[in-house]
């Protein structure tokens, strides 16, 4: 394997990893504050992709407007999911919330199927994101550069919010134990809504970039990325934002590089995340950046 | 009288917070030892460490001469340490007698295959466990409530049920975390009599936490006082009652 091929693969891996990472952050934040695996989170990727798609195709919006609209719409959906489905059962056993989450995820997917239909739609990629830069033998897709830089910017913003703002501090307090937050005089539900909104916005950006990278929009497109993003969150240490991003990168790199090195295994690409999950649980259940959370 | 529990230089840290700091404690059989101190002193944490629910940062705990530091909770429970919880933790949706029978699980000799086939040791063990659990409920005055759901019981009865459940483990040492909290004075004095009789009848060792001073002074042979995780006094009840440090620690609160 020559160097430029290797570099090329690393770039692909990082690109995929960023997309996983963006989705993983939402999982990790919601799990942090609610101890809930929000199964519907992956489907937000699909919601955002459809909104952007319709924005551009039907309403002929310029892409920045469509993308921003997708982010806002997805954030609203995220908040509504929490208010409508999870908030009423906050005090019930955890299993109820998990079952509800599965229900919400299925509802979103099948509503999309009923309303829009199952045929994959090809996403119109704005020219700005097309093409690639040639550096010697190396061809770097412009989109990859966009994805990498946008992820970095979003990550810095999120970390800033979580560590520097009052509401971010409340989020972190909430992920340790709920009572201190009430003591701080902050409305717990506002913090939770904010967490859902923030996670959804990241998922939304992940969504539009996902369908520029893999330009087929269909109702079940969020399922597999969602599953893998959760693995990334566990890999990074659930509850830890930076960890989730790093977990995403590792997972993306692993998937691309393993298949690049061993092309025979390409059929098993989707099984890699699962194997990684089992290995982490056996060796380092708190993940690479995980801290000791009280039960 | 044999030594049951021996704790040496126990410390527990939660992040930056030092909940328990170099605690030493011995409990012998047929002995009732009180562990008291203001709220947040680290009493419950000490119980959690002894029973294996939390791992200690430092220190050594032995039970009947064998080291149990950091062992898993079920192992410690099976070796003979039972407990109750400050904020009652029953199996809410199970019936009263089932709650007690759960604690007898470790004494079951039949395998799950025998449970499915349903004869031999299964029938015998089930009958034995049910009878023993009923006896314990009778002992705690809950005999008539066998089939009620645990969470339908009034508060005081739930506390008693927790004790029946702890005793079903056939322990050598019982740790009671605020057993008379929420009881009225008559119930409390009945409970004091019960504990003293239990100790006489069974030679069980008892460790207990409570805020009701007259109750603690009344039943305990020895008392340990801690504040902010640090030991401030150790002695028989009347020594503790007149100890200046103890009075000062409590004055801040009461």
């Amino acid at each position, binding site marked *: 394997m020559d160097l430029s091929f290797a570099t090329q693969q690393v770039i692909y891996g990082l690109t995929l990893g960023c997309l996983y990472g963006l989705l993983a952050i939402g999982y990790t934040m919601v799990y942090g504050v609610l101890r809930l695996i929000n199964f519907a989170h992956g489907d937000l990727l699909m919601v955002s992709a459809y909104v952007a798609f319709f924005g551009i195709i039907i309403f002929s919006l310029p892409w920045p407007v469509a993308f921003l609209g997708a982010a806002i719409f997805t954030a609203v959906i995220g908040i509504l999911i929490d208010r409508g489905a999870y908030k009423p059962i906050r005090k019930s056993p955890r299993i109820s919330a998990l079952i509800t989450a599965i229900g919400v995820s299925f509802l979103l997917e099948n509503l999309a199927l009923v309303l829009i239909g199952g045929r994959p739609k090809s996403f119109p990629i704005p020219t700005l994101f097309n093409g690639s830069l040639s550096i010697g033998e190396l061809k770097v897709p412009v989109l990859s550069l966009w994805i990498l830089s946008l992820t970095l910017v979003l990550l810095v913003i999120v970390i800033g919010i979580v560590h520097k703002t009052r509401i971010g501090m409340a989020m972190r307090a909430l992920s340790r134990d709920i009572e201190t937050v009430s003591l701080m005089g902050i409305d717990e539900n506002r913090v939770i809504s904010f967490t859902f909104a923030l996670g959804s916005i990241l998922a939304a950006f992940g969504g539009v970039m996902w369908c520029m990278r893999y330009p087929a929009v269909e109702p079940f497109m969020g399922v597999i990325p969602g599953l893998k993003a959760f693995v990334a969150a566990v890999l990074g240490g659930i509850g830890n934002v930076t960890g989730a991003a790093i977990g995403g990168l590792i997972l993306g790199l692993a998937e691309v590089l393993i298949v690049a090195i061993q092309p025979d295994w390409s059929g098993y690409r989707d099984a890699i995340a699962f194997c990684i999950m089992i290995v982490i649980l*056996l060796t380092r259940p708190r993940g690479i950046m995980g801290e000791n959370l009280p039960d | 009288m044999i030594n049951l529990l021996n704790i040496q230089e126990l410390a527990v840290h939660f992040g930056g917070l030092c909940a328990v700091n170099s605690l030493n404690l011995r409990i012998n059989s047929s002995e009732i030892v009180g562990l008291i101190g203001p709220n947040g002193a680290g009493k419950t944490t000490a119980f959690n460490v002894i029973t294996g629910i939390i791992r200690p940062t430092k220190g050594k705990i032995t039970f009947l001469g064998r080291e149990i530091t950091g062992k898993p909770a079920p192992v410690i429970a099976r070796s003979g340490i039972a407990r109750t919880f400050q904020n009652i933790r029953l199996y809410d949706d199970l019936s009263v007698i089932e709650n007690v029978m759960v604690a007898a699980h470790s004494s079951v000799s039949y395998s799950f295959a025998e449970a499915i086939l349903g004869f031999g040791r299964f029938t015998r063990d089930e009958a034995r466990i049910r009878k023993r659990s009923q006896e314990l409920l009778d002992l705690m005055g809950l005999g008539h409530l066998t089939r009620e759901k645990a969470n339908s019981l009034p508060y005081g009865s739930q506390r008693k049920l927790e004790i029946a459940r702890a005793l079903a483990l056939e322990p050598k040492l019982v740790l009671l975390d605020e057993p008379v909290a929420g009881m009225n004075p008559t119930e409390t004095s009945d409970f004091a009599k019960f504990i003293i009789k239990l100790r006489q009848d069974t030679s069980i060792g008892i460790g207990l936490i409570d805020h009701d001073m007259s109750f603690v002074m009344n039943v305990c042979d020895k008392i340990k006082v801690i504040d902010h995780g640090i030991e401030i006094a150790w002695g028989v009840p009347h020594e503790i009652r007149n100890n200046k440090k103890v009075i000062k620690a409590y004055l801040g609160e009461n």
Partner: protein
Amino acid sequence: MPDENPKRDKFLTFISLSFLLCFLWYADNHFSNYTLRILNNIAIFIILAVSYNLINGITGQFSLEPNAFLAVGAYTSAIFTLSPEEKLRSFIIEPMAWPLSEISLSFPASLVVAGVVTAFMALLMAIPVFRVRGDYLAIVTLGFGEVIQVVANNIVSVTNGPLGIKGLAPHTNIWWSWGICIFTVLCVVRLVNSSYGRAMKAVREDETAAMAMGINAFRIKTLAFTFSAFFEGVAGGLLAHLITTISPSLFTFLLTFNLLIIIVVGGLGSTTGAIISAVLITWGGEALRLVEEPISVLGFEYEGIPGMRMVLFSLILIFVMLFARSGLMGRNEFRWAILINWLKRRKTSEAKNQ
């Protein structure tokens, strides 16, 4: 309080099982193939629901495994019932790996092997998952469901890849499916009523308090999970020899979702509820299939909408979780004493009314 009477209860159970057998005998001889197929489906879904409820409802560990374990069971038993000649004929992309290509078992033996293999898979998953917080069980089982499809597509020399395995003998009939169904229910009920079952419920109610009473939560969860996996694997074998053709795309998450609805509607934690609800929903789901097919109602042409059934099902699931969490049965179980008391009370109130 109704009084228990083990002898009478055993007798009544025996009588009603005899009635069930008579009904099945009648059905087997008089009902149409379509109805018989639904009856077989119901039996298989009862097996699945009752075992799925053991881990999700009784032990309280949220898992999403049935589609995966059905697949493992279906493939295992199918691979073992095909004769060497049939294997030679149908594995056209790649011949079947030796020694599988030579082995051939009877149908019942293949079901046992299917159960054991599936239970072993469950054990392998339980070890990493239950050593840490049980939360991850859902993700690991969900992931396994995806992986098993990937694997079935790729190990062509064992599974025949995307082509699947065709032409299985239709061994599954009313007697096999209902016989195993009754056996499963009896096993699960006995287990739940033993000390192991109480320990499972204790783990569900309060894991810490269960451990403080000497219960090894890891062992109990693993027992429940492996035990339900065994029966889910057997059900997979039954399913394979009912529909006679299996392929990776058959075992999607949809199956698991259907079962989740069944146990939630029945009342999470109630075996009785799981049985009732498996009957209702398997039957109802069959009827609802109409929604997705084009029909005309009162002269209106109504076009079938794919996905409509699932929208309805997800709404039901969310609705039950939010507003009627105890489902049909809560956590109550059927007992003869309750039925008898109820009948008695009705009689006396009727007598009063006259």
